[in-house]
């Protein structure tokens, strides 16, 4: 089934898609002069600071800026076309079915060769069990059925650079078609990730380019893919969650291309249904936890920078992580939520949209007027905002709690109680100071797990496979085994009769998975 997905014919369609994008962007440009001026200004400023290997690009924009004023309207529009084409070609990826086959079936072996020649035997065994330790949950049968009836847009939470690899693997294993996605161009410089991403239909997003024209090309590219039936994957948080908190607010730009594609398809007279599938990706251990939480703490309230060098660029870290995760089944859980249409209606197996009362509703009615589909950017932006809220609500409900989250939650609560009234940064400085007797830690973990279970009964969260029905002792054991030997600083240091709270940053990071549900501390102070 999966092989019928359009992505397998991507290379044949590639130039057609690029031209379609160029045509649309050029046609829709309201004011070519403003658009080009903005692009040139942004790019000259950016490239001046660090021209590097992009000297030619810098010169091109310098020329453009110099001549722009003298160009006629037609010439300016042609310039928009030219620049868009350059961008669209850069963005468009490749899809190589052979690489796809390699990566999903033979990947385990091939990857471990790449990863860690020293530990070849061990690595092979660990990765070979990707099958076992990644658990997938949710309405998979329904999603399969929807993938045959329209375009599925996966919108998962985002914690790690491994997400796209793990998510892609899970899609294949569940008989779901591959999904194309936009990956940060900086990742393409990573020797390990780049090879696969290049050939798995990933398109390149250059996050350094900030101007409107580039964003327009990017969004149009995504819209054209969705309209043509390419199942897509967006990380709607925009970037990896630095804090570990489940996304509470989303970047709506790319998500909005779903409704845009739907409206365009109606206008062409070939309705293409679009189904959004929220998903949570839950890890017992996060590959780059230390770097991410450090970045969160350093930059609270300010713009994040792009991390060029974190754990995910170091192959031996990936290998160690994979070995640790492989120790427990269900140490990675991918949980798909209820699929919905772009207007937040639930979708049934047969593709029908139903409202909150279960009434069938035709999604075209949200965008048509007197029988005509109407393009209205303001309207669609609001639909997308509401879709974002619905997706966040799904994230919160479908978050899967694993042993490391619960144990960190219990330990962090103890830390807070030990220093009442201290602000977060003071609190985090108490490393290796707080001793928790074993029986107290067990009691705390048991209490927290009970509260989580009560919330699960109300449909507010999900307990992971290793946690459900497990004793507090077993949960603590699983978390300790996972942390020990992966994180450089001990998270919990075992001593006689109990543990000492070690790396408080990591405790915060893992407990943050409880923040949105109210089961744990929420670092953003404005909350009541």
């Amino acid at each position, binding site marked *: 089934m999966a092989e019928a997905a359009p992505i397998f014919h991507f290379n044949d369609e590639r130039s057609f898609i690029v031209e379609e994008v160029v045509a649309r962007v050029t046609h829709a440009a309201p004011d070519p002069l403003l658009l080009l001026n903005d692009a040139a200004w942004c790019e000259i400023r950016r490239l001046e600071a660090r021209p590097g290997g992009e000297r030619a690009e810098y010169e091109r924009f310098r020329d453009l800026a110099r001549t722009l004023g003298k160009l006629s309207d037609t010439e300016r529009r042609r310039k928009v076309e030219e620049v868009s084409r350059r961008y669209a070609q850069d963005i468009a990826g490749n899809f190589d079915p052979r690489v796809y086959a390699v990566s999903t079936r033979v990947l385990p072996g091939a990857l471990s060769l790449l990863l860690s020649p020293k530990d070849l035997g061990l690595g092979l065994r660990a990765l070979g069990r990707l099958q076992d330790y990644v658990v997938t949950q949710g309405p998979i049968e329904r999603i399969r059925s929807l993938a045959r009836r329209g375009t599925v847009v996966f919108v998962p939470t985002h914690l790690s650079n491994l997400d796209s690899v793990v998510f892609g693997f899970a899609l294949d294993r569940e008989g779901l078609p591959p999904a194309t996605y936009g990956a940060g161009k900086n990742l393409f410089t990573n020797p390990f990730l780049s090879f696969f991403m290049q050939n798995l239909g990933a398109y390149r997003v250059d996050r350094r380019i900030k101007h409107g024209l580039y964003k327009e090309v990017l969004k149009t590219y995504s819209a054209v893919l969705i309209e043509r039936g390419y199942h897509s994957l967006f990380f709607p948080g925009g970037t990896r969650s630095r804090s570990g908190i489940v996304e509470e607010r989303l970047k709506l730009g790319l998500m909005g291309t779903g409704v845009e594609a739907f409206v365009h398809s109606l206008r062409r007279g070939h309705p293409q249904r679009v189904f959004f599938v929220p998903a949570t990706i839950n890890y017992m251990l996060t590959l780059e936890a230390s770097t991410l939480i450090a970045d969160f703490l350093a930059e609270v309230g300010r713009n994040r920078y792009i991390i060029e060098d974190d754990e995910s660029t170091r192959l031996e870290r990936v290998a160690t992580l994979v070995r640790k995760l492989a120790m427990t089944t269900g140490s990675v859980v991918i949980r798909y939520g209820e699929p919905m249409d772009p207007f937040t209606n639930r979708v049934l197996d047969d593709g029908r949209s139903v*409202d909150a009362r279960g009434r069938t509703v*035709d999604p075209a*009615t*949200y965008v*048509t*007027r007197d029988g005509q589909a109407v393009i209205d950017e*303001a*309207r669609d932006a*609001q639909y997308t*905002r509401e879709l974002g809220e619905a997706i966040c609500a799904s994230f919160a409900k479908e978050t899967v709690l694993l042993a490391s989250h619960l144990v960190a939650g219990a330990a962090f609560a103890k830390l807070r109680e030990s220093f009442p009234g201290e602000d977060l940064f003071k609190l985090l400085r108490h490393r290796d100071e707080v001793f928790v007797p074993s029986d107290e830690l067990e009691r705390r973990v048991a209490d927290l797990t009970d509260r989580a279970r009560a919330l699960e009964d109300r449909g507010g969260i999900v307990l992971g496979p290793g946690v459900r029905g497990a004793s507090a002792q077993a949960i603590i054991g699983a978390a300790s085994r996972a942390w020990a030997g992966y994180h450089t600083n001990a998270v919990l240091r075992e001593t006689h009769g109990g543990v000492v709270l070690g790396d408080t940053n990591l405790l915060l990071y893992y407990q943050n998975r409880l923040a949105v549900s109210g089961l744990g501390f929420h670092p953003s102070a404005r909350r009541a």
Partner: protein
Amino acid sequence: MGERGSLAVGVLGGGRWGLALAAAVTRNGHSAMLYSRRHELAPNLAGAFTRTTELKAVAAHARLILLAVPSSVLRDVARALGDVTNGSHLLVHGIRGLSAEGLTPLSQVLREETPCRRVGALGGPALADDLLEGLPSVIAVASPFAEVTDAVRAVLEGPRMRVSVSRDLVGLEWASALNGVLCVALGYARAIGIPAALLGGVMVRGLHEAARIAVAAGADERSLFELAGVGDLLAAMGQDDRPECRLGAALANGATLADALADSPVRIEAPTLVPRVVAFARRHRVDATLFESIESVFVGTLDRETLVARLMQRR
């Protein structure tokens, strides 16, 4: 659909407010269809609009539907309306109050009970009688969808009506609901004869409390200081017959809440709303001294002297 240049509007609710909205629409030359469950109610006060007892007829007649039913029946009406509408309909309610089950804005009830997404709300100081008599007036409308506010404006705005537009739907709904409570305080304060200067102080304080509460609920603070907020309150100063003010005055004159409510010709949301608002404010650590005092007045545990003393205290 209406004739050329004339737009079609559905109005749900055969009470005075429903009639008033239908009259205002008709006066502007548009075609209104009024739905009410009881047909015998009131003859056509303002003339030329169609009446029906079929929701289906309203949904077929108009894309824009205004709801002017009591909040206690809104959920049921909306659920029935949901059976005959689809994604193309624009629903706008003109009901003061928040949902009885929680503090859910009523537009949320519309979203839960119908397939419609483009929803909005009316607010502001306009009284049904003003509209029925065709006095010059103003009305506020809010929706995150410009299509909704545009549609309302197209049918209500005219020589006798100005429409003030906002995107902050939650803000308008909370402002309307909280203002209802402040009007009770206004009526009470005037009846016990507190000096005008203190009255001004109390009202400003009430507005600020309302603003903080509404912000905690996701509203834009500015919405409290626009037509549905401060505009509504200023108008209440001159509206002696405003039901909430009369309720406050009755309580000040020693009536019990039950008696005062029984005397009111219309349903007043404030008494059921206040305890929930106070609890909400407490949960969000928002100071709401005035709202707490009104709650005490409702349950009869606060006399005038204590009230004034409390208001004079520094926080």
